[in-house]
């Protein structure tokens, strides 16, 4: 884990496809391993990343395979932050505000945002000049 004054960053840009979401997940896992982030943190932040990226591929770009996803990862001694930027259709306003309930057990879809909310401590979302920015922060346990 980086010490109090250190900050580690990593970026990766991929095509907006489900196959390339795997590349983002692999990069995030490698980052978590390199900086010895706790396994539980690595698991949760990967769940949040994959659900967020899948949402962008499906709803932002309509599964067309067009467009791209930019991931930025950052960690210091207190938290790990994963940001995703895209130029697809933005999420409806207020989608990330308030707790989204987990759908009933027989639903085959609709769990993504509830999983994201359960896995990270803070989610910010904004659209500016056609660029959608999603930022997810997971607090690290105190050593």
């Amino acid at each position: 884990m980086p010490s109090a004054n250190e900050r580690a960053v990593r970026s990766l840009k991929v095509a907006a496809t489900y196959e390339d979401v795997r590349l983002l997940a692999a990069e995030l896992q490698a980052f978590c391993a390199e900086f010895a982030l706790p396994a539980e943190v690595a698991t949760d932040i990967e769940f949040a990343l994959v659900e967020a990226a899948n949402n962008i591929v499906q709803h932002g770009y309509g599964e067309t395979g067009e467009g791209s996803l930019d991931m930025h990862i950052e960690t210091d001694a207190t938290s790990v932050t994963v940001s995703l930027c895209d130029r697809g259709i933005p999420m409806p306003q207020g989608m990330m505000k308030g707790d989204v309930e987990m759908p009933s057990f027989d639903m085959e879809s609709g769990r993504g945002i509830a999983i994201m909310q359960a896995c990270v401590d803070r989610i910010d979302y904004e659209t500016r000049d056609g660029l959608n920015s999603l930022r997810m922060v997971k607090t690290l346990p105190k050593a």
Partner: protein
Amino acid sequence: MPQDHDIFVLRLPMERLDAAAAPEFKARLSEEISEDMRLIIVDFSEVAFVDSTGLGAIVSLLKMMPRDGKLAVAGLNSSTLRLFQLTRLDRVFEIFDDVEEARVALSK
């Protein structure tokens, strides 16, 4: 008492059951699962990661089964178990450490 051959074990030969893998997996379900299969064990022992799309595919399997059917999940690792717990699907599926434990439980 159901015999061993009444239990269908569905092996998942993939490292990730995610949105990229789900279409092929669901096509496989349509080919391999018939409506009269009452007892199914899904073997996750080779799966390192599952996402909500993968879970949705498992839910679709449950909906293909008869009402009195039982769907058990075996071989989850700490990560895949975590997602079942987060989504509360651990209350819907019977979860076992491995296929043999599930087979014994479903045979009772």
